[in-house]
């Protein structure tokens, strides 16, 4: 069984996404003291803003500097004859098995961040849930998609 990993660039993408979210949070958080000063809201709001700001710094540290590399290290997927195995997690490591007979569709998706780095995400949907492989090189993703859809055909879905 061959363990396949994500493209290394995914760490950068996770960081970029976290930074975008973080910046949005900062905008909201700075709006609080500004409004408090302008509209005479109770002083209590300064404290709230300070606490939120602190939390946001923690968010920045964790999601930009700590988590992406851990997530990259723990993540792998493996294609076996009849199923797809995905391992992921940061503190809690989980392994999920999706038999190809249960797969309903395979989907590739590419947002602007992924597009810039020529990466694509692949998600696999069963009747119960959807699992995503976050970033693969474009060609790898297409190959994987074709491979899975080929395997789905081989393991012809019996209608249950």
């Amino acid at each position, binding site marked *: 069984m061959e363990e396949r990993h994500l493209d290394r660039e995914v760490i950068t993408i996770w960081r970029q996404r976290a930074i975008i979210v973080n910046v949005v949070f900062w905008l909201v958080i700075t709006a609080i003291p500004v409004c408090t000063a302008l509209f005479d809201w109770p002083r209590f709001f300064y404290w709230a803003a300070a606490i939120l700001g602190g939390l946001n710094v923690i968010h920045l540290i964790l999601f930009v500097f700590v988590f992406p590399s851990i997530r990259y290290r723990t993540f792998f997927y493996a294609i076996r004859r009849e199923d797809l195995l995905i391992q992921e997690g940061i503190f*809690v490591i989980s392994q999920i098995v999706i038999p190809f007979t249960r797969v309903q569709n395979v989907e590739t998706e590419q947002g602007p961040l992924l597009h810039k780095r020529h990466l694509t995400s692949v998600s696999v949907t*069963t009747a119960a*849930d959807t699992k995503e492989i976050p970033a693969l090189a474009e060609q790898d993703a297409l190959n994987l998609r074709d491979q899975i859809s080929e395997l789905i055909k081989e393991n012809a879905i019996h209608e249950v």
Partner: protein
Amino acid sequence: MKSEGKRIHFFSIFIDFLNTLRSLILPLGIGFFLGFRHFFDDYGFLLLIPLFILISDFVGWLRTRYEITDEHFHLRSGVFVRKDRYIKVSRIQTIQVSTNILMRPFGLVKVKFDTADADKSDVVLSVVKDEEARRIKQLLGHGDEQLEDLENASAPDSLIRPAGKKSPNRVFKLSGKDLLIAALTSSNIGVIIGTAGAFLSQADDIIPDHFFNSSVGYLAHLTFIFIILLIVLAALILWLASLAVTFIRWGGFTLSVTDETWRIQKGLIQITDETYKLDRVQAIRIKEHWLQQLFGLCTVFAEAIGSVSEDKESGGSILVFPIVRKKALPSFLEAAIPRFAGTIETKRIPMRGVIYALLKPTLLLSAICTGLTWFFSWGKFTWIGVPVIILYFFFSFRTSGFSLKGHRIVFTDRMLAKTTVITLKKHIQTFTKEASRVQRRLGLGCSRFSIRSSSPQTYENNQMDQKDAEKLFQWFRN
């Protein structure tokens, strides 16, 4: 217009009308109450709304037709935008025939059926004649009577299915005694308290202020004991109401089992008659409340693809039978759905798992109590509750377990009610194994599987032995 197919019964206009009115009046009604004085001056035109609804229902009825051909059920509807739905007869999973107090005197019923496609809504024929419903069921292969008077129906030859309809193998009827037990141990009381609470919060708006003031003033004069008596009385009334609700909902509960289908009939006022295909059942769920457990009883549910059940309590799953004695459960399953039958004894999770699981609630409770003690003088007394709650959690976690035999897997756990899920390998969609660093060090792990139902369901077993988790994982992969 060329007349193709049949119309649903004329009466449906009024039923639809009443339903729309009811759904309009409930939210609007309170608003009307408040502005009632100026109602006819300012909002008199609102009285025209029912007229519009009636007209639109009439046109909608005019434009709705259905027909059943050899392979398809064909429904055409829509006033401006015409909708044509073709549904393969073989794809229809469930048929529900229901009637209520309004329709019953006229021998009218509502027919509803569901396909495996979760995205599309159910198909509803809101009012048809009883005989017509029976004919539809027959044509869709869910009937249970002989095809006799169908020779003169629209497309005669191909209709008669080779698989002759047999009489049911087993019929389970909910006896009066069991119904009483079900009512006594049911959890409906929670629902009723919720409704009563919602009503009381609304009552604030409805009851005039002066009345409220005087009645509260009156209450203040009563002695403390009398108020307690009132509360007890209220609880008693609620409980009686819950009894009544259970009687009405589950009265006449009958489960008829054939080789391929379940036919479930229930209700005293709103009578429903549902037919399910057995091969659509994905899992059996057995639920025991504390009270039920005390008397050795349980309730049996089934998770199936495309169920039409509206039972809120069961969350979209099929209520197979409300009360089964724990002792009789194996034989009940054997008769009702053999492929899920077998023992439901499970191997419990290890003690270190229970203790590890307790860690989280203990820390959380301690934090809350510390906070309360810090800020309030009465806070220190909350510590008395902590051991009680921890003990409760201890027994809850102690219930968890699993059992694996051949292709059949059983998971048991408890939050409020003890729930046992039985499913087969072929019904499991995905399987997950999970462990945190601490869990790995303690040799613990989680297992989780998801199955397909009217909404996807996930069942998990936390803090099981790591070896067992690995065993289950490998079992699913091979």
